[in-house]
């Protein structure tokens, strides 16, 4: 039996010019054009955004929770990867 439920879409909203699109949630819609409209109504009706992206949820490839240790733990003790060992010249503002 085929599912009659609308497919799921992930919604990304850019709050204002110059910022990145941020994932805000997901919704159901029959197709991409309707997903953008539904996103407008569900996620931007209080003036939250100036641009919307929608992506079919099944098109997102995610890292697995099982791989969490192998993926992320090795980064935890590499302090030398942070650019904190430089002397910042006094003339360099706004760093």
């Amino acid at each position, binding site marked *: 039996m085929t599912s009659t439920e609308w497919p799921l879409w992930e919604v990304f909203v850019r709050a204002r010019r110059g910022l990145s699109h941020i994932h805000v949630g997901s919704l159901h819609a*029959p197709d991409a*054009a*309707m997903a953008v*409209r*539904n996103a407008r*109504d569900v996620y931007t009706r209080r003036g939250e955004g100036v641009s919307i992206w929608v992506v079919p949820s099944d098109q997102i490839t995610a890292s697995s929770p099982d791989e969490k240790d192998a993926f992320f733990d090795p980064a935890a003790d590499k302090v030398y990867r942070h650019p904190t060992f430089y002397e910042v010249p006094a003339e360099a503002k706004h760093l």
Partner: protein
Amino acid sequence: MRDRYALALGDDALVLAQRLGEWVARAPELEEDVALANIALDLLGQARTLLTYAGELEGAGRDEDVLAYWRDDRDFRNVLLVELPNGDFAVTMARQLLFAAYQYELYDRLRASTDDTLAAVAGKAVKEVHYHRDHATQWVLRLGDGTDESHRRMAEGLRAVWPYADELFDGDDVTAALSAEGVAVDPATLREPWTAYVGGVLAEAGLEPPADATPRRGGRRGLHTEQLGYLLAEMQHLHRSHPGVTW
């Protein structure tokens, strides 16, 4: 004269807002529930401004609440189209397409009104209504050009509301006098762009404009369908039972 014009436009928005509100918690999907509520709230905002303005022009001390809650159906001046029962989703989308396409052309021209308040209302509302028209268009296309069942229902929905389209373009003594002054838009001038837009959507959706419809009219003169009485009973009940209630 101007108060009667503002009242008619305000009543259109108020009654349709109430009708669309009936979909809340009943729409086919959560997302549509929110979309229809948004559209209803846009219309309610238009109604509030227009009824407030009508009350000020009238000068009898009636504010938006008095006009919304203390008039009976014979005193409402909305077109019959907006008071029609929601029916199924296709009926509602057919009604939305016909009305939003009309309201878009109306507000687009009313922006040039010599009346500053009406021009300001139209300037804000035309953007809202542009979206309402798009929303209805998307659904009419999908249902009309979808499955056999969705096509059948969309065609039936269109037949149900089509007889009420003619009234949108009726003029009366108010619109005749005010459009001559540049205050109002002559409704008859909206028919051509409306027909072009709606006709284009229907053609793309594979739907025919119903040919043998007998036009229904009377709302602008206060002669309404029985359905408006039930709508007002629900809308006005709380305020009439508890005058001035707030929460």
